[in-house]
């Protein structure tokens, strides 16, 4: 009996002692953290996608709280609304960004871009691009093995089995930029999101000379420069046999779409054109 009491006393005494020790250590090494960091983290979407440039939402919320000027920080997933609420909570000026969306700049579907060989290796664009130019005559276009889709945290990118090209679900796309980084061919670009999902862009990244590009793909940009000439806003530049539409200057007049002889400039989300005469009158002029 006596030994039992001794045991209980020793063990509970030891427990109390260690608890005290732990308490003192915790006091001594306590890290003062701004409680707002936790609160801001809760306000962020919690996707941990890295679209802001930080490893996760925690890093972002730390930066938001600690920095005085947060104009360079932006969460593409939360968007303007999220940033506004965070900024008002912290009493700082809200950073503003245009809403963006990922755009796949290649229209080299199986029908447009005939295959010249077959890739048999690892199902990864990164591996394929390290080995060779691709299954078609175009050495710039989409490889279709889906590195972008695999990297998308928001289920917004899928390879269309019919065309073999990735398609962006604009509703789901948060413009985090993970696909842009994942694509070894640098086909995907973040462009300004316009109302009603309207988009105009050059759906090609082929820098080869016109004749070579045309041979490889039916809808390749051949760098003829017609679009640049017709653009009233000087939004189009042609460099290295490739046209590019600057979305900050483009006013979506759609003149270039009609002008492009290859159909490499594409438009989305517009109502159907009024009459078919438009391109014809352009021809007669």
């Amino acid at each position, binding site marked *: 009996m006596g030994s039992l009491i001794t045991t209980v006393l020793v063990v509970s005494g030891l427990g109390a002692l260690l608890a005290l020790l732990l308490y003192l250590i915790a006091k001594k090494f306590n890290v003062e953290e701004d409680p707002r960091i936790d609160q801001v983290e809760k306000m962020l979407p919690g996707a941990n996608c890295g679209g802001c440039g930080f490893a996760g939402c925690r890093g972002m919320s730390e930066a938001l709280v600690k920095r005085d000027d947060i104009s360079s920080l932006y969460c593409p997933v939360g968007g303007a609304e999220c940033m506004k609420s965070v900024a008002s909570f912290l009493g700082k000026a809200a950073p503003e960004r245009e809403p963006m969306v990922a755009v796949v700049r290649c229209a080299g579907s199986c029908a447009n871009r005939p295959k010249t*060989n077959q890739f048999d*290796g*690892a199902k990864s664009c990164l*591996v394929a691009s*390290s*080995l*060779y*130019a691709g*299954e078609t005559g175009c*050495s710039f276009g989409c490889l279709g093995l889906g590195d972008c889709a695999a990297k998308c945290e928001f289920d917004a990118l899928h390879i269309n089995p019919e065309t073999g090209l990735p398609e962006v679900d604009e509703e789901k796309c948060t413009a985090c930029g993970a696909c842009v980084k994942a694509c070894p061919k640098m086909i995907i670009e973040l462009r300004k999101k316009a109302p009603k999902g309207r988009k105009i862009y050059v759906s090609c990244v082929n820098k080869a000379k016109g004749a070579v590009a045309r041979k490889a793909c039916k809808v390749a940009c051949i760098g003829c420069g017609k679009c640049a000439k017709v653009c009233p806003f000087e939004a189009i530049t042609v460099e290295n046999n490739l046209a590019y539409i600057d979305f900050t200057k483009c006013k979506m007049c759609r003149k270039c779409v009609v002008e492009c002889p290859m159909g490499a400039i594409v438009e989305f989300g517009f109502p159907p054109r009024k009459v078919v005469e438009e391109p014809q009158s352009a021809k007669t002029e």
Partner: protein
Amino acid sequence: MKTFPIGGIHPSDCKEYSKGAKIERFPVPATVTIPLSQHIGAPAVACVAKGDKVLVGQIIATAGGFVSSNIHSSVSGTVVAVEPKADAQGNMKPSITIAVEGDEWAEGIDRTDTVVKAINMSPKEIVDKIAAMGIVGMGGATFPTHVKLSVPDGKKAECLIINAVECEPYLTADYRVMLEQGERLLIGARILAKAIGVDKIYIGIENNKPDAIAHLTKLAGAYLEIEIVPLKMRYPQGGEKQLIAAVTGREVPSGKLPIDVGAVVQNVGTALAVYEAVAKNKPLIERVVTVTGSTLASPKNLLVRIGTPMSALVEYSGGIDGIGKVIAGGPMMGRAVSNLDAPVTKGTSGVLLMPTQESLRKAEGSCIRCAKCVEACPMGLEPYLLSALTQQNDYDQLEAHYIADCIECGCCTFSCPSYLPLLDWVRIGKAEVMKRMRERSQKK
């Protein structure tokens, strides 16, 4: 019999198809496309323009830096284009295209068959000559030879090793050179030895080429400094570090170069090119290419002008019917060709035509941790781990696991029972780690 200490595999050597075929001179094609980057290092800079007339052996592009190489015209005719052309992998590379007219050679090139034995040049003159003639490593890596021969200050070469291993299955180009041009090859080796100031030459040959060993041993009897070293057949014995280990027993430490253990390694083809450049004043404008395959009507060893389209060689050797895959080089380290119109370059040791059945990859499984790749790796690395780390983008760990030492021999992929494309991933990780290491050393 000597061999290297760790790793390695034993693929079937498949040399029987083309080993009996004598080196044939391939006819000059109608047009040649000569890429400006046929070597490791900076691309050469074109010094001819569209419309210029060129002669065989005339310089058409000059080295774009120290680690670079001159390029000479392999034909006579008119330059029709200086612009990017698709290479064997379909990527656009700056090239010079020449339409062939006749076969007029530039002056000063000795085209006779007489064997010139005496070389009265100083080491520096020899290295300069080799640089001027655009000689690069012809085993496939295409490292500019004059750079390898320029021994850095404070280091000393002790021996020259001629790489006559040709451990790649199928290829017989070096083997035929040894049998048919043995005398010239030995003189080339002696020129190389003189350039780096050594008096010991080893020629490492695998024992699956007994007639080459016997032939060269007989010829080498005339030269005291040359020793023929028969080696036990094992892939990748032709890797520089493996060959040094096999012949001298010395191990090149991680991150160091062969010269750090006193060895300079040169390929058989390079030694022959050096002989022709120094003794005959002939630039590197043609090379021996093995065109082979198990179903080919007539596998051949062809002496081909640089820039000849591969499709011409394929046609000459029996056509593309039933062929599923064309590989430039051997099956282990060669690269699949997606554009057959691409030219033969200084590094094209072979064109291998694989029938569809042989060429198909098997379906990938999962890693079963059997460690066969670890056993096979001749550099003592852990390929399964490097492959996984690459897929996780963990570059710090990759560097810590010595991915930069990978020689890309493909033993890991060959040995994997789950058919994992280990090397494909390791290569990507290695490229990224090497880039980071370079950036770091530049910052310092």
